[in-house]
């Protein structure tokens, strides 16, 4: 396999956006191309992550995007893996460059759903569950993670305030991110008094519904060297879990995260303590707690306490979600995994401004689909 690099990244603001799905995808892609200092003609193939294009009357986004970028003859692949679509498209792009099929490709993720309203979005997102056992029985995504949260609270005797600390920290980071959806500081008290969505999770335990797009350019190291600033992809892992929560051995861990992380760490030849920051899938506060344990930063059962003790803050033991995470930066589901890579690129090339992790050399991204039924973990390093 060849070394693969990320050469440029672009993102729209995340939030409620007015422009169409193809416009926001084109905006992020154009920013990535220009940021990389390449011509669109350098791009040999594209990987497009999207889940609900149907909501904005545009599926088969790839050719539409390639036409807009002036390269209609380049092949594209659309990838749907629920909320993990972005990182999984990134992985396919990575594998194709590493495997020698292409020297330079683009991976773009996009979602546009907020115009459909709370009920439509809640309903359609539930189709990402194992529908026969979960969505059909009235489970929403907040409800599925709330079920994990209750199991976790029972097993490890933590409090809802401990979970709230995750949201407070992510809002603090997101307030420093000009592209974040929810840019305001909140307190544990704000979380505790927010409306219950699916007990024990409240509004401020949840990520919002967001629109947005993110895009990155992947290429060989040889190609990268003759262009702009780049970072190396040093580890890539994928994993799966039983689609329904009921089929998992434990309700307080996500097997696909562990499988993907093990592969990525082994490929990079490093252990979790060598990671300087991590962008993890915090669709709900409980998810970040479980992720930080499954990724090997904390012992099982201690992640919530660690967050409450401030060990995951911006320049602490292991900065988690310096971007603000899904919770504050927002969660346009097809874009999120690529947005995490864009954040890792910005952090490792000194473009993260106020939210920079000091002296960061190695960054991790972790993104999953549904309740972690599919997952990808990547590791990045400065060259």
């Amino acid at each position, binding site marked *: 396999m060849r070394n693969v690099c990320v050469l440029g990244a672009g993102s729209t603001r995340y939030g409620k956006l007015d422009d169409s799905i193809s416009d926001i995808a084109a905006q992020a892609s154009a920013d990535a191309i220009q940021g990389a200092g390449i011509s669109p003609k350098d791009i040999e193939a594209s990987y497009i992550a999207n889940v609900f294009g149907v909501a904005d009357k545009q599926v088969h986004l790839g050719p539409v995007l390639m036409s807009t970028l002036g390269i209609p003859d380049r092949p594209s692949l659309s990838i749907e893996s629920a909320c993990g679509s972005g990182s999984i498209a990134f992985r396919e792009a990575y594998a194709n460059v590493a495997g020698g099929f292409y020297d330079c490709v683009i991976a773009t993720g996009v979602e546009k759903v907020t115009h459909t309203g*709370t*009920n*439509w979005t*809640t*309903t359609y997102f*539930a189709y990402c569950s194992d529908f*026969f*056992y*979960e*969505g*059909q*029985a*009235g*489970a*929403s995504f*907040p*409800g*599925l993670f*709330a*079920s*994990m949260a*209750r*199991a976790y609270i*029972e097993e490890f005797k933590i409090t809802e305030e401990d979970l709230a600390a995750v949201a407070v920290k992510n809002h603090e980071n997101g307030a420093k991110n000009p592209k974040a959806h929810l840019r305001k500081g909140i307190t544990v008290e704000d979380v505790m008094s927010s*409306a*219950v*969505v*699916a*007990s*024990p*999770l409240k509004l401020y335990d949840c990520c919002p519904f967001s629109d947005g797009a993110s895009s990155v350019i992947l290429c060989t190291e040889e190609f990268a060297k003759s262009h702009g600033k780049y970072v190396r992809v040093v580890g890539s892992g994928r994993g799966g879990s*039983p689609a*329904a*929560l*009921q*089929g998992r051995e434990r*309700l307080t861990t996500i097997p696909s995260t562990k499988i993907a992380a093990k592969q990525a760490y082994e490929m990079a030849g490093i252990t979790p303590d060598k990671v300087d920051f991590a962008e993890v899938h915090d669709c709900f506060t409980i998810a970040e707690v479980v992720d930080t344990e499954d990724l090997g930063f904390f012992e099982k059962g201690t992640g919530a306490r660690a967050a409450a003790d401030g060990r995951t803050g911006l320049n602490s033991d292991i900065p988690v979600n310096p971007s603000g995470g899904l919770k504050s930066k927002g969660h346009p589901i097809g874009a999120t995994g690529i947005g995490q890579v864009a954040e890792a690129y910005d952090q490792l090339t000194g473009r993260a401004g106020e939210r920079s992790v000091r002296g960061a050399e190695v960054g991790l991204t972790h993104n999953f689909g549904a309740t972690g039924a599919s997952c990808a973990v990547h590791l990045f390093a400065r060259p």
Partner: protein
Amino acid sequence: MTPKERMAECARRGRFLAASCSKCSRTNPCTARFCPSCGSPDSEPVEMEGTGRVATYTIITVPPAGFEEHVPYAFVVMALDGSDLRISGFMAGISAPADLPVGSPARIAGFDERGIILERT
């Protein structure tokens, strides 16, 4: 009938349809077409008592379409008695965590447009 239809038919009678692996004898839900332990396609159907205990649950106040009139309701994951299998489903009439401590006894009580229906016993 597909495995899901058979699962639903059993649930209407308050029972759970498992499949006992002919090769390694692990018990799986009948919807598994190959045994997750050993990969065997061969199994014998086994009807189990649809009783168990609440493993975890949530009470939903922001519902998906079709569930508006049921709010608040619970989505419950139940551990089945006498096995390491769990089954999840819809439970009506739960409005506060005090209504349903984890570990509460429950049972399969039917199947309709809300999927597998569970109730407290």
